[in-house]
């Protein structure tokens, strides 16, 4: 039995190599606190040297994505590194980040005027190795621009989060992972009144060399927690994956 398992693992690794996936040099198998979700990434490791793209159309979605990214930043910024947040029309409320274990004073906001400047600042910031991550709110990102950012990211190793507002051209970037985070009704213990922990439908629309999927997560004060007994999980996972819902092929 064990021998079979080993062969399967070996085969999986070989397939990854044939697919052109290069394991990150010197990367330790660090966890980012996403639990089961990390298993869908190649090798079971959350890719830090990569572009993560978040599709946010509604303001509610972008608030949910902000919260989800803040939860990831809490782990990425653990060593004291700073983070740059670029955008043309930022609405993020810095004081709220402390509830996601991020020190808001370690985030440098760059509120630029135009999309062009936002792209330039993003690229410059991604070149800066002293940063943990760069979050950019962009309206659209072309294939060429994203490829340029990808080259910079591979060089410097800074994680890039891109919040995109245009869903229309969703398939045309080289992002390693494409996410869609949408809010879900919260649950409280024993049906108490009021709101519980923030809960999201986390849809991984695309993972390079990985398996896309849909999960229900909540931010349980200290870290992410997968919600297994959520009644609608099955329904959402089977029928309402966003991409299919929109009738679109995701690259």
């Amino acid at each position, binding site marked *: 039995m064990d021998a079979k398992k080993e062969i399967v693992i070996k085969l999986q690794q070989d397939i990854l190599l044939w697919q052109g996936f290069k394991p990150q040099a010197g990367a330790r198998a660090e966890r980012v606190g996403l639990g089961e979700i990390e298993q869908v990434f190649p090798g079971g490791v959350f890719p830090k040297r990569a572009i993560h793209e978040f599709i946010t159309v509604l303001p509610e979605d972008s608030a949910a994505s902000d919260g*989800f990214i803040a939860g990831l930043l809490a782990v990425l910024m653990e060593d004291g590194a700073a983070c740059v947040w670029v955008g043309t029309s930022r609405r993020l*409320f810095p004081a709220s980040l402390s*509830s996601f274990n991020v020190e808001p004073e370690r985030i440098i906001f*760059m509120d630029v005027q135009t999309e062009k400047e936002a792209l330039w600042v993003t690229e410059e910031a991604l070149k800066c190795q002293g*940063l943990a991550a760069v979050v950019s709110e962009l309206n659209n990102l072309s294939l060429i621009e994203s490829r340029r950012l990808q080259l910079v990211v591979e060089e410097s190793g800074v994680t890039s989060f891109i919040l995109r507002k245009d869903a229309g051209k969703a398939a045309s970037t080289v992002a390693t992972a494409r996410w869609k985070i949408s809010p879900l*009704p*919260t649950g409280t213990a024993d049906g108490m009144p009021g709101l519980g922990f923030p809960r999201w439908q986390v849809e991984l629309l695309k993972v390079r060399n990985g398996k896309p999927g849909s999960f229900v997560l909540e931010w349980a004060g200290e870290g992410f927690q997968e919600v297994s007994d959520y009644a609608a999980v099955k329904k959402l996972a089977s029928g309402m994956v966003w991409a299919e819902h929109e009738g679109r092929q995701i690259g």
Partner: protein
Amino acid sequence: MQRRFVSIWFRQLLADWQLIRRPELAAVPFVFAAPDHGRMMITAVSPLAFGSGVEAGMRAADAKAICPGLEVLDDKPERARNLLRRLGEWCVRYSPIVAIDEFGMDGLLLDVSGCTHLWGGEREYLKEIFSRLKYKGYTVRVAIADTPGAAWAVSHYGKVTPLIPAGGQSEALLGLVPEALRLEQPVLVRLRKLGFYQIKSFVAMPRSVLRRRFGGDFLLRLGQALGSEAEALVPLQVPVPFSERLPCMEPIRTRTGIEIAITNMLESLCKRMQTEGKGLRTGVLTSHRIDGKVVQIAIGTSGATHSVSHLFKLFQLKIDQIRPGLGIELFVLDAPKVDPVEVPQEEMWTLRPGMDDQSVIRLLDTVAGKIGPQVIHRYLPATCYWPERAVLQARSVTEKPASRWRMEKPRPTELLKRPDPIEVMALIPDHPPAFFIYMGVRHQVVKADGPERIEREWWLDSGEHRDYYQVEDDQGRRYWLFRSGHYNGDQKYKWFIHGFFA
């Protein structure tokens, strides 16, 4: 080193200036007059008018009566100072420290210590200044002495020689009138009343007696002239301690040329700053073009640095702003603001990233140089509950929060800059909304928390308090709503949306 000072007295500063501009006035007596208490008072007199008995301080009407055909020109305040500043800037060729004579406002004081030998001696030096200014059209009297006070006295009242040898200011002053000491009018009147017509008649008197009779200011002026009291000149151009000049054999017109010039100057400047443990905070590159125009670009850094490559990158972003025209013949690179820099010990293995990481500082400098420092924001907690004022702009990259971030009450991940009015159905008096309509979409509220009342800070602004509710609609989307004040019917919108929760 022996300190030497030169005083240049422009005898008819404004009249000479006017004659240079309008030579046709040479045959006409003219004066400058300025309104004072409702009448025109004469402030400056031309030589021709002076010959007819017109003096500064007379009324213009009286002067016209004495001297028929007198032309009265309008004087502007600060005109003399502006003129002296321009002449002073021209005089920088003689000495780096040039100051305006604040007492008479008609002369310049130069600190010429160690400058005169370049013109072959003090006599030649004074002759050069005198003849150059005469050629320009200014009548001047010059004098050189060990103290600015003595030089001033000799230039204004000296009769023997303008060259006062080192240590000879006491003898030179003895025969002069008390006015040569730059004294106020009441003191001069008292001196004359007591029969002191020359400095030698009171210079030997005990200091305590002089102080009692004429005040401390008198003794200060006397001491400044004799050299027992120090007098500081306020130079017109403050010399920059870190400055580099690069004259070019051929005018520079290309971007490559400018880049090479900047690199050369930065290399020598940074080498000097490194040995002195200083780092650049602001840098100004001045390009003098062959057509006489001057182009300047400036950079600033978030932290003191003497790294050539980083500073060059900052200048490189601004090279586009230099218009070389026909060519640039001289580059001057100044560092007006430098700070001590701690030379970090090279660390090979430990990597401790943070806000003051060199690469982060470089990034901030680059962005500030290209787009502007106003785009960079960092926030610190403020001791304020009002959401709009809950965060504070940090002033520097390394500033630490003075208080901790509040986490007791939930705050939305996204906050609207201005609360948007919404239509709401809610039970009176303090129930959360049953549903609300925002941007034409109806949201059925399923769960809610609240209210959390936040009062306005009455010492900052006035208005209603807010009762905040955290609500979740049937789709699971979470909002931050508030009711402004109590229900009393005189306000159109009572309910607002102020944020989105994650």
